[in-house]
């Protein structure tokens, strides 16, 4: 974590100290305040890696989304590999909320060798209805072998898919006929999507 230096203004020193303090309430207030700093992404990303309180985590993520831009997306992307469930899902949600700035990271993460990263990466696409992200997931669905990843893709496609999506879902159902949850998910998604 970045430490304040003697040359920094007193309020900034106080905010950075509070961000590392023991009181979650003070950390939450500091998390809001540090958005005003020019190096806010660096500060927030550093705190995001170690923060344990879900309420503070939420403020940090919201601030990163508010700052926006590719640098914010770059700070969030590695957190999809975090051992902490709250941190990795918060990162996925924030990347979803970042919009187009997150799409270059989505394109890489959705092809990650780790199926858990692919599952979370699918969440990023939820903010991009009917666009290239849906087409990417449809293409990858044709080759995906992990059933849980397939189910995550289906769940997201149910939200962002188009009239072009049902053939990809039917092909998946035919390719993996023995899984009850996958069959249930595909049928529910088909009922939700516009007909092809």
């Amino acid at each position, binding site marked *: 974590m970045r430490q304040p230096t003697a040359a920094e203004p007193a309020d900034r020193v106080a905010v950075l100290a509070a961000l590392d303090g023991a009181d979650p309430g003070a950390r939450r207030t500091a998390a809001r305040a540090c958005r005003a700093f020019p190096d806010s992404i660096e500060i927030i990303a550093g705190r995001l890696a170690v923060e344990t309180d*879900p309420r503070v985590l*939420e403020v940090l993520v919201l601030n990163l989304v508010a700052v926006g831009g590719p640098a914010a997306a770059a700070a969030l992307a590695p957190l999809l590999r975090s051992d902490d*469930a*709250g941190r990795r899902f918060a990162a996925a949600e924030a990347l979803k909320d970042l919009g187009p700035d997150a799409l270059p990271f989505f394109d890489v993460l959705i092809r990650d060798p780790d199926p*858990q990263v692919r599952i979370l990466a699918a969440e990023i696409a939820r903010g991009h209805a009917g666009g290239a992200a849906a087409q990417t997931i449809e293409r990858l669905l044709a080759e995906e072998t992990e*059933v849980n990843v397939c189910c995550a893709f289906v*769940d997201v496609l149910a939200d962002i898919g188009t009239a072009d999506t049902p053939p990809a879902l039917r092909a998946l159902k035919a390719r993996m006929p023995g899984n009850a*949850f996958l069959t249930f998910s595909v049928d529910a998604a088909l009922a939700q999507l516009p007909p092809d």
Partner: protein
Amino acid sequence: MSEGNVTPIRPAPAKRLLVIDDAALVRAYYRQALEPGGFLVDEAFNGIEGLEKALISPYDLVVVDVNMPKMDGLTFVHRLRETKEIACLPVLMTSTLDRDRDIAAARAAGVNLYLVKPVSEDDLRLFAGIMTGAVGE
């Protein structure tokens, strides 16, 4: 035997389950698997909503996911175990996470049983029945 000595047989009250998962498809799948088994199923979208519901209504079992927005499943179980009124509620965790350290973290949090997704309808009904005491009644 006189009629007065006969103990009327009453059906056991239905067991109440709280399913906590951010994926609507998962909640719907669990509901359609459990309700035919006589369970009453309630739903929550994340750990925060789950805690609120668990504090208001008496449940016999919580079925909870790990990766969820606002409050993840592990944090939910930690909070549950710290809350006197609901600390003893049995918890069945279902997740796509299948590494030993994920399962160890769930156990450390206070999860009673951990099943890796996808969970079959038969397994869900069986373990829900065992954990609520519905099996054998």
